């Protein structure tokens, strides 16, 4: 009896008492998924990049209009011929474990990216043949072939620097406890629960960090995520669906900001990947007919509340590499029917694989109806995303509905998908002229010349249509009204510099 009273009193006191009385500003960010391993070398999920922005600074970063700016590096110079680049490093930077950031650390990290089994960075910076230390704050990358997109690659995970000491100690367990040089120091991770970081006292740009603690909370259900933002349990949510925008905008306590994404939504078409490539690969006029029968503007208005941007190229219309000579064509059902007749397929049929995700399912239904008016029967086959991508690799598809998150450099949006040996060329499209053009663009340092090469690329791709680019999303971030200083970026990554929570 006595113990019962003591226990009850204790529980009551705890319940009545305040939680940990703390003046810390805590920013809680809702994520759409749980990130994979927190190791920049092997990480592959987009959502992981959002978390890395808190923990791991990169050699370079980009501005909202995609200009490359210094971060851990202060500048770079290409040698004549583009086969080497000298990178100058920022002085006085420390990793979270107190180790110094210097040229040796850069060499370690690049070699780690290139040599770790299972590294997903090797395909991004594989042209780096060697890393030489010029002095403690200068390195030289020597390349097997010139690679102009290299610096852009160093604005993402390939440019993230981890502490060599921690990486050696933790080995392949590094991804469970990252130690980098970003504004926040890793504290803990509860898988599918939360990822916590605390402000790093020795951060090189600490004057611009105004949040003490950041918590990333994965909540896969969008309704629950939105409810958390509205209740104040989260202060930010990323990648808000267009169908949730009305709720956000009607709540005076919340804000929503959007910016055109770097990537695009697309339908890769099987041209030559196994026997099923005979369907859409038979004649480019069939693919052109499908393209002409789709009304992108109507789909965006009806399915996405007019929030997305119609597209047909591997960069958005806002990009300096967009080819203005080839705008999105207006829908032309009559011309589509004519093309099909000319190709000898007046009543054409094919199957589109779509994952069970609301946005793509709804858009597919509208596309199906539009194509039917042009005499094209499109069967929608629902497959889980993993299964769909596997089918794509194996050639067990005619068309599937996917997206690409996008990269700052146009090479990252097109090379791997359309070159003959491209790692993501499920279509098995192969055009020697295109390969030569894209390879030349990789080596060309002059921006004006590069633009011409990408213009040629667009012309070839819109003629051959190995894939149909449909639209570019806007990346929407939902914010509490207490947040100030937030700047949206086209890559959707949340930067913490200047961010304040009142």
């Amino acid at each position, binding site marked *: 009896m006595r113990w019962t009273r003591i226990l009850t009193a204790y529980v009551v006191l705890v319940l009545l008492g305040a939680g940990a009385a703390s003046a810390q500003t805590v920013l809680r960010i809702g994520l759409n998924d749980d990130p994979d391993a927190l*190791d920049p070398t092997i990480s592959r999920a987009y959502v992981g990049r959002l978390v890395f922005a808190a923990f791991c600074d990169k050699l370079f970063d980009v501005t909202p209009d995609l200009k490359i700016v210094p971060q851990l590096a202060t500048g770079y110079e290409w040698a004549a011929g583009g086969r080497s680049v000298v990178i100058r490093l920022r002085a006085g930077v420390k990793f979270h474990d107190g180790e110094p950031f210097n040229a040796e650390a850069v060499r370690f990290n690049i070699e780690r990216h290139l040599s770790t089994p299972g590294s997903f960075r*090797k395909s991004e910076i594989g042209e780096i043949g060697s890393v030489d230390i010029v002095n403690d704050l200068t390195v030289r990358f020597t390349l097997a072939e010139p690679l102009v997109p290299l610096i852009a690659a160093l604005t993402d995970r390939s440019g993230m620097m981890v502490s060599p000491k921690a990486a050696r100690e933790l080995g392949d367990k590094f991804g469970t406890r990252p130690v980098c040089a970003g504004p926040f120091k890793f504290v803990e991770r509860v*898988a599918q*629960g*939360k990822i916590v970081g605390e402000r790093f006292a020795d951060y090189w740009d600490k004057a611009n960090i105004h949040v003490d603690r950041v918590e990333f*909370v994965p909540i896969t259900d969008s309704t*629950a995520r939105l409810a958390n933002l509205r209740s104040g349990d989260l202060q930010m949510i990323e990648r808000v669906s267009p169908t949730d925008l009305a709720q956000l905008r009607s709540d005076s306590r919340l804000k929503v900001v959007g910016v055109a994404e770097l990537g695009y939504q697309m339908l890769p078409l099987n041209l030559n990947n196994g026997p099923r490539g005979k369907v859409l690969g038979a004649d480019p006029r069939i693919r052109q007919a499908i393209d002409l029968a789709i009304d992108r503007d109507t789909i965006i208005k009806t399915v996405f509340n007019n929030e997305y941007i119609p597209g047909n190229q591997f960069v958005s219309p806002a990009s300096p590499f967009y080819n203005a000579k080839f705008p999105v064509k207006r829908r032309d059902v009559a011309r589509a029917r004519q093309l099909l007749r000319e190709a000898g397929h007046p009543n054409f049929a094919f199957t589109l694989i779509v994952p069970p995700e609301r946005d793509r399912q709804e858009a597919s239904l509208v596309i199906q109806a539009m194509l039917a008016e042009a005499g094209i029967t499109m069967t929608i086959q629902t497959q889980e995303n993993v299964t769909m991508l596997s089918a794509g690799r194996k050639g067990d598809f005619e068309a599937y509905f996917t997206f690409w998150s996008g990269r700052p450099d146009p090479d990252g949006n097109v090379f791997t998908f359309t070159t003959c040996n491209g790692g993501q060329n499920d279509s098995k499209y192969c055009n020697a002229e295109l390969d030569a053009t894209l390879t030349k663009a990789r080596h060309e340092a002059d921006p004006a010349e590069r633009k011409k090469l990408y213009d040629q690329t667009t012309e070839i791709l819109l003629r051959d249509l190995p894939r149909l680019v449909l639209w570019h999303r806007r990346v929407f971030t939902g914010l509490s009204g207490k947040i100030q200083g937030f700047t949206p970026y086209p890559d959707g990554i949340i930067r913490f510099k200047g961010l304040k929570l009142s």
Partner: protein
Amino acid sequence: MTLPRYIAQRLVVLVPTLFFVSVLIFSLQQLLPGDAALALAGEEHDPVAVAAIRQKYHLDRPVPIQYGIWIGRVLRGDFGESMRNKIPVSQLLAAKLPVTVELAVCSMAIALLIGIPAGVIAAVHQGRPIAVAANVLALSGLSVPHFWLGIMLILLFAVQLGWLPASGYVAPWEDLRRNLAALVLPSFVLGTGVGGVMMRHTRGAMVETLGADYVRTARAKSVTERMVVLKHALRNALIPVVTLGAIEFGRLLSGAVLTEQIFAIPGFGKMLVDGVFNRDYAVVQGVVLVSAGLYVLLNLAGDVLAFLVNPRLRGPA
């Protein structure tokens, strides 16, 4: 039969059960379409990296070999590591088991608080409006989809009223107040469903015991109705309910998938679903094996309790 012998007999069944479950879950996972290495690769499709993953996790070996490697490690206490986030599966299981246990305990408490009184009321006052109300309450708990109920409760108590957090989990040793606050809504969602089941069984058992001869004798001896119901009838009616409670508790421990998704509770259910979608085989196998083991042990616990409270199960005196 003595209790230790009874327990020993039941434990002998545990080993072949777990072996069967391990073979079953391993085989079923192989039926999942899609390539696990490609699933891990996601947007990054470097073939060399994918091949390295396949080799590291033995995905390029024949299925029986893969099973042999895995079960050999499990017998040494090594459940492997999550392919997705590299955390050892045993560490994940150890972290999530307390979360799931706490949620299950709180849900069971609510289920018992609702189910048993409602069952007793429905049995004692058969045919009256209060019994109808108790039935409606139980059926509502059984029929209302958890997903919908959870969202509605979040909108009301978290968004509109601001009384409770919308989701998330805080460990009790970090902040007990926030821990309990975070569990109120998900426990209620789960508890109402289980409470409905408990109510129906309690009602049935009570109706049977209230019609028994010894209850009639107690009434004839002028024992108060309250004592008849609570001391004589309910105690005996609870015997089958205890066994049912153990089974239901075992189901809760297996992970309440939808509830954990809505409320972002990092428990077994969420881990299992994410593991399936990500083709994270080691995680799925670990969760299923541990859940199966817990389920068998809980069934045993329920039977032991029944054995202790019901002398008729011990055999002839």
